[in-house]
């Protein structure tokens, strides 16, 4: 037993780890194939069209065909590319995305059929498992950043610069929403956090943190509406513009595995992990929370979140870059920070006074309502009107001999250069038609 970790790995040996690792890789790769099909199908239905339906039953083999096509395409290396980093970048992306599932619990201890030998349905766990997930995510961004830089081209570089800024901004909010889970569960190990959610799933007491996490996880995986690093309308394909064939496929793979990663982390931290939802969990003294059943609940929860990803993609438009940054820094981070302070205060008072959480929350809500009522109904004090510069007075920027900007309340006179010339348009008169024939023949040749 590792101290502070609920799952018991003491019976595992090298072979167990190897088999589990291979199973996780197989699970991830097949899930990506299914996820691509799923996304195209769901987005198709949302846009009132059938989606892929030609290859295989219900188009299920479409993503396999796409993968084959990508494998067989010519692998190009751009002349201006920095060869080593250009090759390294997609590898970093895929490698880091594959690492995260090592600490995700698929279920509790499972017994292998026809033996009496049981092992946790999880590759490994340690006291800082969630921080390890954050570390993998932050190293994975190097793939995007270096890929964009090494392509030696403008659009990829812009995409990678955007990606850097995006990840730095959204990882802060994400980290702070995770901290509230740490505070409530008193642990950073995934199996212990799932164990702590036996009676209540954390998304109920930590709803603000859950919302912040869900928003920032979409930002973290570069999905619409936050897919600015690869915005098609602006940057062609962003950081992967100059990539083709298998190197492109690696980026693609990493993106989808990352979606699965963040969904699995959200499931583990906020949605009770592998625990069965309420009416099922009460059946037969928790029968559905033991053995192999929990893997089903885990997968269902992950795919509900994947559906949410696709739903958001089918519904929302891409944000403008400045709005996106303002949202991250002025909304998400302050909300996450404020929530964290509030939660810490509640926990501190609870530990000091021994009151129950319910009483504390009631007291806080009452105090909050009183404060809001006081602020709303407090008689407003009349403010003396500030004497400002006279309105309408023309402002001479060069009055002091050198140009100065206008002060608040002053307006610049219209610039001499700003005047737009009226457009003189020669309307298409019917008489022009015959004369224009030869010219247009030249133009269309």
């Amino acid at each position: 037993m590792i101290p502070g970790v609920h799952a018991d790995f003491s019976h595992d040996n090298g072979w167990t780890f190897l088999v589990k690792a291979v199973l996780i890789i197989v699970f991830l790769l097949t899930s990506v194939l299914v996820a691509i099909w799923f996304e195209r199908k769901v987005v198709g239905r949302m846009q009132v069209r059938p989606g892929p339906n030609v290859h295989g039953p219900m188009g299920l083999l479409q993503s396999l065909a796409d993968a084959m096509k990508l494998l067989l395409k010519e692998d190009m290396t751009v002349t201006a590319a920095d060869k080593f980093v250009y090759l390294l970048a997609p590898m970093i992306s895929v490698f880091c995305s594959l690492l995260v599932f090592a600490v995700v619990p698929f279920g509790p201890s499972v017994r292998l059929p026809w033996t009496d030998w049981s092992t946790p349905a999880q590759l490994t766990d340690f006291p800082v498992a969630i921080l390890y997930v954050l570390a993998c995510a932050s190293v994975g961004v190097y793939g995007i950043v270096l890929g964009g830089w090494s392509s030696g081209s403008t659009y990829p570089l812009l995409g990678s610069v955007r990606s850097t800024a995006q990840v730095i901004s959204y990882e802060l909010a994400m980290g702070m929403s995770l901290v509230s889970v740490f505070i409530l569960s008193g642990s950073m190990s995934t199996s212990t956090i799932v164990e702590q959610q036996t009676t209540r799933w954390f998304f109920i007491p930590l709803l603000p943190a859950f919302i912040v996490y869900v928003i920032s996880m979409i930002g973290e995986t570069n999905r619409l509406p936050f897919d600015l690093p690869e915005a098609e309308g602006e940057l062609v394909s962003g950081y992967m513009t100059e990539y083709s064939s298998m190197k492109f496929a690696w980026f693609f793979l990493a993106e989808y595995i990352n979606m699965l990663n963040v969904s699995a982390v959200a499931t583990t931290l906020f949605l009770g992990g592998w625990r069965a939802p309420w009416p099922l969990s009460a059946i037969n003294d928790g029968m559905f929370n033991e053995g192999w059943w929990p893997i089903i609940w885990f997968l269902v929860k992950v795919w509900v979140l994947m559906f949410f990803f696709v739903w958001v993609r089918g519904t929302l438009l891409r944000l403008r870059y400045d709005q996106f940054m303002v949202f991250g820094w002025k909304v998400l981070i302050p909300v996450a920070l404020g929530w964290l302070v509030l939660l810490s205060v509640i926990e501190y008072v609870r530990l000091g006074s021994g009151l129950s959480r319910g009483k504390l929350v009631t007291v806080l809500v009452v105090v909050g309502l009183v404060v809001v009522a006081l602020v709303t109904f407090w008689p407003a004090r009349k403010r003396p009107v500030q004497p400002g510069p006279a309105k309408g007075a023309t402002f001479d920027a060069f009055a002091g001999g050198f140009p100065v900007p206008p002060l608040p309340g002053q307006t610049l006179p219209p610039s001499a250069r700003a005047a737009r010339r009226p457009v003189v348009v020669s309307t298409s008169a019917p008489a022009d038609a015959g004369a224009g024939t030869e010219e247009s023949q030249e133009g269309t040749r």
Partner: protein
Amino acid sequence: MTTTSAEAALFGILAPLMVLAALGLLFVKRAVHAAVCVVFVMICLAILYVANEAAFLGVVQVVVYTGAVMMLFLFVLMLVGVDSADSLTETIKGQRWIGIVFGIGLLVVLLGVVASTSHDLPPAVGLEIANAQTNPTGLAAILFGNYVVAMEVIGVLLVTAALAGLVLTHRRRLGVHRNQRTLARERVAAIPQGRTLAPLPAPGVYAQNNAMDTPALGPDGQPLEHSVPRVLRIRGQQKTAAEVLTAEETLRSRLGLPSVGVDEPEAAITDGVSASPTSDDAEEARD
């Protein structure tokens, strides 16, 4: 607690690679390659921390230094320019020699420490006690129990530095802030002056022409002059819809198809709405 063989093997593999990457930092030509070398050294260092049972330190090393600090470095490197080289002039006089002297001094001290301990290294003590309640809990008890004042002071220092950053980069807003709502109001208020709420229509797309200089056709079949960019109209470089449509007519005549009526531009324009069947006909004629 002594070094196990697995730990020794890990160290034996990672340490030479780390030294190579650290030397790479000194000798590579491009700044981004140097950054990649540093990232490699940092991650290997984190692995060694974890192997030494300092799991929290190892992971935080990656999250904070590799994930945030190095990323900001890389950000600046990329913004400064892909091909910019460092200036090699010394800004402080004798900088290079001072650096070399200090470097040799550090090397001597480190070698001295290694030489004095390497022949008989006693086994580490106290690791089990320190990590009894998991590594992060033990660390937290020390940091926030024994060194709480130091932690608070560092926190205040960091907040001050962050505020200083804000103050130094702050620009006073001189005009009124125009948000989305005011912009929308201004747009609506400008309708009497001839401004439209929606964007201007895109230039026309015809069977043989989708250039910027051709006006689109409105729902009534008449060309929309303002769909051509203003600059082209000022320069007089726009085409008329009739020109494009007559070009299609000449193609029809070249292919020996019956004409739709070149001499009547009105008819040509209304026909132009369904211009694609014409080009389909042309395709068939070629086949």
